């Protein structure tokens, strides 16, 4: 009888321990841009498992496109992951509204929140509720090839306004050098110019107002002005031949091979221009950047940054270890390590010390000091309006539509949203 009791107690104990211990956190991630990214996630998972015996963290990776197309179905099925990667913005708002996410506001104390940049926490919140944890930010810069601009006699550091930039592009073109390398097939690289111009001309507030449909939405004069500025650039024919059949990764490689003077991209370009170049080395120390120039009369602060905020959203009914794991993954040590490995720019406060590349450290500092961080417009506006914006930017550039038509195209999509 005694042994039976003991046996039953052991069995019961095991059962309880089993249910408490056998906790699995299933993470759905996008395939990282850099090879060390995947290993980083797996190492962090292993470290968390070592600290929390019995917990398993499982990472699944999908490429961007499959990730985006599979997610809606997945989130509404019982096979949904516990947390998944997010670009925040409009798609995140849709997900929050649809009730597929978990409100984790109560899991984050004031002290917890202080570990992350304010813009990061804001980007992961909808209607004042926190649904996820930010992990990194991306900042867009105008990168240039030192050797080529010197050859053309242009000093990029003296470019302060959009007109300066147009003049520099013209001078470079006259010197027989391609002014800007562009991955036009993917459209969004063109829209980076359009979005940056809009944020300089209309300002962050203007963009948010247009998103809500105030002041004529995107038919607002400021957006038409942004399109006109875009057209001024396109009229110089500044891109490499065949840019509309060049994907962004290929364009980064062309830039790394010295096929053009400027390239507009996020901080990821430092790695991408080397990896995708024919030599595999890229520009090395010849690579530097300037911030996007101001537009005269614009309402946006030239110190505002433009780019992405990325992190992890927690799904409803996520396993109990999900939030602790996300906190672990974004703690100072792991954030610093991510920066050191040049996987991304950490969004944690004081986690910039690991960044070794001086250019990346400078971008990280600009991001932390910026009065506003404007989210990529195609992400802010959500899938359909974002795609319309990318189309509009591409078609202004190819001369298929006028700036007015472009603004109208985006506004139409917004009204349909």
């Amino acid at each position, binding site marked *: 009888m005694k042994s039976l009791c003991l046996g039953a107690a052991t069995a019961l104990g095991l059962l309880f321990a089993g249910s408490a211990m056998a906790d699995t956190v299933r993470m759905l991630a996008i395939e990282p841009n850099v090879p060390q990214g995947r290993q980083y996630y797996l190492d962090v998972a292993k470290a968390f498992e070592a600290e929390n015996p019995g917990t398993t963290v499982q990472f699944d990776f999908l490429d961007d496109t499959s990730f985006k197309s599979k997610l809606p179905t997945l989130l*509404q099925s019982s096979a949904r992951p516990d947390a998944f990667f997010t670009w925040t913005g409009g*798609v995140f708002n849709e997900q929050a*509204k649809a009730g*597929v996410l978990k409100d984790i506001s109560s899991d984050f104390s004031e002290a917890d929140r202080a570990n992350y940049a304010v813009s990061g926490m804001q980007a992961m919140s909808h209607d004042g509720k926190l649904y996820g944890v930010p992990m990194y930010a991306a900042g867009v810069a105008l990168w240039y090839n030192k050797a080529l601009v010197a050859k053309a006699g242009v000093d990029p550091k003296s470019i302060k306004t959009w007109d300066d930039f147009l003049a520099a592009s013209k001078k470079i073109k006259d010197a027989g050098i391609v002014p800007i390398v562009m991955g036009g*097939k993917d459209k969004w690289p063109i829209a980076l110019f359009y979005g940056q111009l809009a944020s300089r001309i209309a300002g962050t507030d203007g963009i948010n107002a247009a998103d809500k449909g105030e002041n004529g939405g995107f038919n607002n004069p400021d957006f038409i002005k942004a399109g006109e500025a875009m057209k001024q650039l396109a009229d110089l024919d500044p891109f490499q*031949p065949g840019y*509309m059949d060049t994907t962004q990764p290929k364009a980064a490689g062309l830039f790394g091979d010295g096929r053009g003077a400027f390239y507009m991209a996020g901080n990821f370009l430092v790695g991408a221009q080397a990896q995708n170049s024919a030599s595999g080395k890229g520009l090395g120390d010849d690579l530097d950047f300037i911030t996007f120039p101001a537009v005269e009369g614009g309402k946006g602060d030239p110190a505002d940054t433009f780019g992405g905020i990325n992190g992890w959203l927690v799904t409803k009914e996520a396993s109990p270890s999900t939030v602790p794991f996300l906190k672990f993954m974004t703690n100072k040590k792991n954030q610093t390590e991510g920066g050191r490995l040049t996987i991304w720019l950490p969004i944690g406060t004081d986690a910039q010390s690991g960044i070794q590349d001086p250019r990346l450290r400078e971008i990280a500092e600009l991001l932390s000091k910026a009065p506003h961080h404007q989210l990529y417009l195609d992400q802010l506006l959500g*899938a359909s309006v974002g*795609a319309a914006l990318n189309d509009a930017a591409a078609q202004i550039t190819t001369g298929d539509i006028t700036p007015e038509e472009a603004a109208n195209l985006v506004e139409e999509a917004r009204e349909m949203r």
Partner: protein
Amino acid sequence: MTTMIGSRPKPSPAARIARMHKQGKLTALLLFLPPALVLFTLFVIWPIFNAANLSFFKWTGYGAIDNFVGMQNYQRLAKHSVFHQSLWNSGKLILASLLIQLPLALMLALLIYKKTSANTAFRLIFFAPYILAEIASGVIWSFIFDGDFGISGQIATALGVEPMYILADRQYAFMAIITVVVWKYFGYHMMIFIAALQAVPADLLEAADIDGAGRWQKVFYVKLPLIMHAIKLSVFFALVGALQVFDIIIPLTNGGPSNSTHSIVSYLYTYGLAQLNVGYGSAVGVVLFILCMVTAFSYRRLAIGKGGAL
């Protein structure tokens, strides 16, 4: 559908069932019909009705489907210039299939249908593109058309001329797609024609020889009439296939430049699925379904129905 019972009075349903029971057919029917019917309903009929229903809603793929918008998705579709372009592109694909692909396939089939070892080798070569996965062919050809690192770029460099960026050019991009589609599928139609040509009775050809028919007379008066059923079948496949082209376009141009090279299906994918307008995508799907059905049935009536069975 006309039935074969002629002027005989129709037996009552009960009598028919009783007769089937007597003949032992009823058991077979009850046993074998339900599985097929259930599967067909579940995987074919139900999704069609579901898509038709979804096309009246605005739905992003998240949350409940409760935003009924009536015909709005169809109205948007009717007004959207990119959709008009994609319809016209699908039309161009149909024309290219009928006017370039099938004549080419027929010509090659006439040249190599006889069983010799050289002909077998040619058949294999011509059929090879069809075996390749569509997406792989798209990627391969995107490298061929690449003006920087691709074959067309290398040829241009070797000749010392400016490289052409065919896929970046609104004027030529769709021609490039048509080229790839013709290249990919002519071998399939050629095989259908070869099989039919090999079944042409040798004695008829011999009789034509004895009657003094020339090479072309034999083709036009003996071979072609005898393989007309295969040609009609090929035309049918070409029509329906051209309406469904998708996986070649995505890697080649992804619908660009400036959305000028979408087919109906790639339009559906881009504007319906990738942009999370599931209701809108369903409306495109319904239009595509109707187009396919109308094409299939009217072709059956016009061509196959009059010429007898396939």
